[in-house]
């Protein structure tokens, strides 16, 4: 992105929402296109392997069903992440219940996050992924939202249900832990 275009503000989400409410379907396409991939990234970093598309779609459907209640006191993206986070938790709980009734081998008992390791060919990428996988769930959420989305601490705090100060501490602790893990080689 060039210096010139970086500071140009796109149409605000709230304006697109208003256009969609007046029946403009293109506004919905723009909103989904703007946020869908970020939601998919977040789902994957939270250990979702299958049905990422479906999860992202459910997030948007739920959000659009209750857009009337969206007060814009936070950004639409933050609101979408909050919805997605709840859906991810629901799915993980559901999977845990299924695991409790089906006997699984030792390989499946490790953290969900490690299940993506097979997709990573590069040894360095594997090490980075392992370093992130070792973080606590809350640290991992804060760290990935900060690193992959550049989300401000105030918005991260809304998504994970914490405070801005606590999120800052979680991020720096996570960064330190990742550095230490990678420097142990």
């Amino acid at each position, binding site marked *: *992105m060039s*210096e010139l275009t*970086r*500071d140009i503000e796109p149409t605000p989400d709230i304006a697109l929402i208003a256009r*969609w*409410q*007046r*029946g403009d*379907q293109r506004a*919905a*396409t723009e909103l*989904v*296109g703007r946020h*869908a*991939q970020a*939601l*998919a*990234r977040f789902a*994957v*970093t939270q250990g979702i392997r299958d049905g*990422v*598309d479906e999860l*992202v*779609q459910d997030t*948007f*459907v739920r959000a*659009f*069903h209750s857009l*009337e209640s969206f007060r814009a006191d936070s950004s639409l993206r933050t609101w979408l992440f909050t919805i997605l986070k709840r859906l991810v938790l629901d799915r993980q709980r559901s999977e845990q219940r299924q695991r409790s009734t089906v006997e699984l081998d030792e390989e499946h008992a490790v953290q969900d996050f490690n299940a*993506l390791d097979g*997709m*990573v060919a590069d040894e*360095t*990428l594997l090490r*980075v*992924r392992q370093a*992130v996988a070792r973080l606590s769930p809350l640290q991992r959420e804060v760290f*990935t939202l*900060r*690193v*992959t*989305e*550049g989300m401000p601490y105030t918005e991260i705090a809304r998504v994970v249900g914490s405070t801005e100060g606590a999120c*800052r501490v979680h991020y720096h602790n996570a*960064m*330190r832990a*990742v*550095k*230490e893990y*990678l*420097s142990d080689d």
Partner: protein
Amino acid sequence: MTECPDDVLRDLLPEYALEALGTAASARVAAHLAECAACRAELALLGQVHGTLTRGVPRVDVAAVVAALPRPMPRPVAIPAARRWVMRPVWQYAAAAGLLLAAGSGVAWQRAAGGHAARLADSTLVQSAGRVQAVQATQAARAESGISFGGGLSDLSVDELQSLLGQMDTLRALPSSDPASMTPVIAMNEGGKTL
């Protein structure tokens, strides 16, 4: 691995890596990076982590998501301004009814009491009728028994009727027939004592 002591600048590194900073902040970080090896190393690590975490993320089918979205709900239609009078509060109707009742009672009281105002009204009406009679000699017989609305109106011309209505309007504008104030007037001398 050492860490940069400038926490504010370090906090901007993720946005800088994503090219999400404004021009001024971006220039500030770039100037800092030129001098700080720890931040350069952290920026490189951020790039590695970002590349790793975003690798293998499936592409979302935007059209499929949009197709699954609900249709926007139509907003409630505003009530036209011309019909809003129907929605006035009940107290306004009650006040209007009370006003009409009071006016009606006043007129009834005037007629029943036969006081000065009523007599004045009668004389005014008689005068009015007299003028009409002057125009129409055929109504002379009715003048003896005062004004009469029975059957005679149809014989009047438009001008005569308007004249009569004008006289009635002056009747409505008569001074109030309410009793005079009963507040006693107390005369006092210079010492403040009543006389």
